């Protein structure tokens, strides 16, 4: 079985975001780009599955829709251990076009397990994975905290409101992964970084596709009122403030 995982290329999570062009575009100066944290964990889990020969995973491929500027991030995934990469060469537009491009690029490749993250840390969309599954006409499982293969069959844990479910699903399918999928992201070793230089990145030109949404502009959060301090010795006063002023109880 071949595994595909899709990555979005996002600003490092500690970035202080700023906007330019009348707040229509992210100011990318000085930003350090990273693999979206969930996608890095998805990769880690895919590699763990591949490490155990009993699982019969032939290869782990990374896919990304984006311009050549994202190649360092793709190389990082290769350095961590992905075997090869597919990049659809277009500016990542809205989720619908990203998913449509991914679907076109992978439709004929027969991946058994396709992994996406539950959300990108940039647009917090939580939509690409489900859209991709619908475009491919295959099942999806959303909120996946564990993927195992038992006797050739994928066994999944799905987080639901107030609990979890263990389920089996027939391949091919899209796993939309969240917390729990892997403990810590795997780190690229020197050998991996050397090897990544020669691993293939297949560049595909985009299919025609129209976006369904667009960003009008961005806004910064309204500044919160300054913090009101209560003296530690009289900490109990806080409760009265919460009751009478904030009116939360």
């Amino acid at each position, binding site marked *: 079985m071949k595994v595909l995982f899709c990555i979005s290329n996002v600003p490092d999570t500690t970035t202080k975001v700023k906007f330019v062009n009348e707040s229509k575009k992210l100011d990318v100066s000085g930003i350090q780009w990273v693999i979206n944290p969930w996608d890095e964990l998805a990769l880690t889990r895919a590699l763990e599955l591949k490490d155990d020969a009993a699982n019969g995973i032939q290869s782990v491929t990374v896919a990304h829709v984006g311009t050549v500027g994202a190649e360092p991030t793709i190389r990082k995934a290769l350095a961590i251990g992905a075997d090869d990469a597919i990049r659809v060469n277009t500016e990542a537009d809205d989720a619908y076009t990203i998913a449509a491009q991914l679907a076109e690029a992978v439709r004929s490749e027969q991946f058994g397990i396709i992994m996406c993250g539950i959300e990108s840390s940039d647009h917090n969309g939580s939509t690409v994975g489900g859209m991709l599954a619908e475009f491919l006409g295959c099942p999806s499982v959303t909120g996946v905290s564990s993927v195992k293969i038992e006797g050739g069959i994928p066994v999944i844990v799905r987080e639901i409101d107030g609990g979890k479910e263990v389920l089996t699903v027939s391949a091919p399918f899209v796993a939309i992964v969240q917390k729990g999928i892997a403990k810590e992201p795997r780190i690229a070793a020197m050998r991996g970084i050397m090897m990544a230089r020669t691993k293939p990145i297949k560049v595909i030109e985009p299919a025609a596709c129209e976006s369904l949404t667009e960003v009008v502009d961005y806004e910064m959060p309204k500044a919160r009122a300054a913090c009101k301090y209560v*003296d530690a010795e009289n*900490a109990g006063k806080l409760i009265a403030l919460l009751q009478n002023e904030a009116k939360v109880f």
Partner: protein
Amino acid sequence: MSVLVFLENWDGRFKKLSFELVSYASKVADMLYSPVIALSFGQVDASELEKLATYGASKVISVENDLLGTFDEQAFAGLIAGVAQNTDAKVLVLANNNAGKALAPRLSVRLKAGVASGVSKLPVSTEPFVVYKKVYSGKAFANILIKTDIKILTLAQNSFELVESPKPFVCEKSAAGPDGSLIKTQVKEVQIQSGKILLTDADIVVSGGRGMKSPENWAPLVELAGLLGAATACSRPVSDEGWRSHDEHTGQTGKIIAPNLYFAIGISGATQHLAGISSSKFIVAINTDKDAPIFEAAQYGIIGDALKVLPKLVEAVKEMKSK
């Protein structure tokens, strides 16, 4: 034309989240001069369904079918898309929980409808259709234009007040099931947490960080939560160290919550932590370091040792309750 709101149930009951969704859908429907139709899957009693009319649903479609016992995302999306077409839905409203996150994108492709997920306010305008949503994990917001005829919105939890606007209760029962050939997932086992207040549902959350120093120190924090009817939570290092269970961890890589009140006790306020809690209405910070970034996000603060402050808070709450 209609606004269609999709509702799950928990053992045949709705929860606050369900009524938030109907309240929201009903306000959006007012903006479009159209009715709200609530779509409920699975067995729910009439008395429970009737509550949806209280929050503004003009009609409730209740679908009961054995095939709905397993939440198969593809099959569910197919069935909902059919109802959306039959009811000429122009806006679909779903929760921004895992079920909504599973269905909204699939519906988007089926109906060729643009999605905005995690919206927390009414649309900014309906012509053109623009919504406001959090981006960059709460570090900014975006106005998103949805260009398609049909729009899909998922509503961030705890972001919209319940509004009663009673309508006569009109219920249509349906036994139409999903397309069985689409069902490719099989649930083997369900583990439901019982008794505990769910972190994502809680109005008040009491959360501890590394400043709590050791797992043995948690008793007063848990006591405070118990007295307030609050859920307990923690920062990531706390769950990584095994001091508290993993499902309590909030933040970018944990649960994203928006309670009315969040106590951050011995939590420094790293951006990845704030990403999960910045939508809270009120944040209280308790920290020994007056320069801890959490105080910039908080409305109320106590500079001091959590282990000394907590017992005082517990006392004060007991006193409040005794009055």
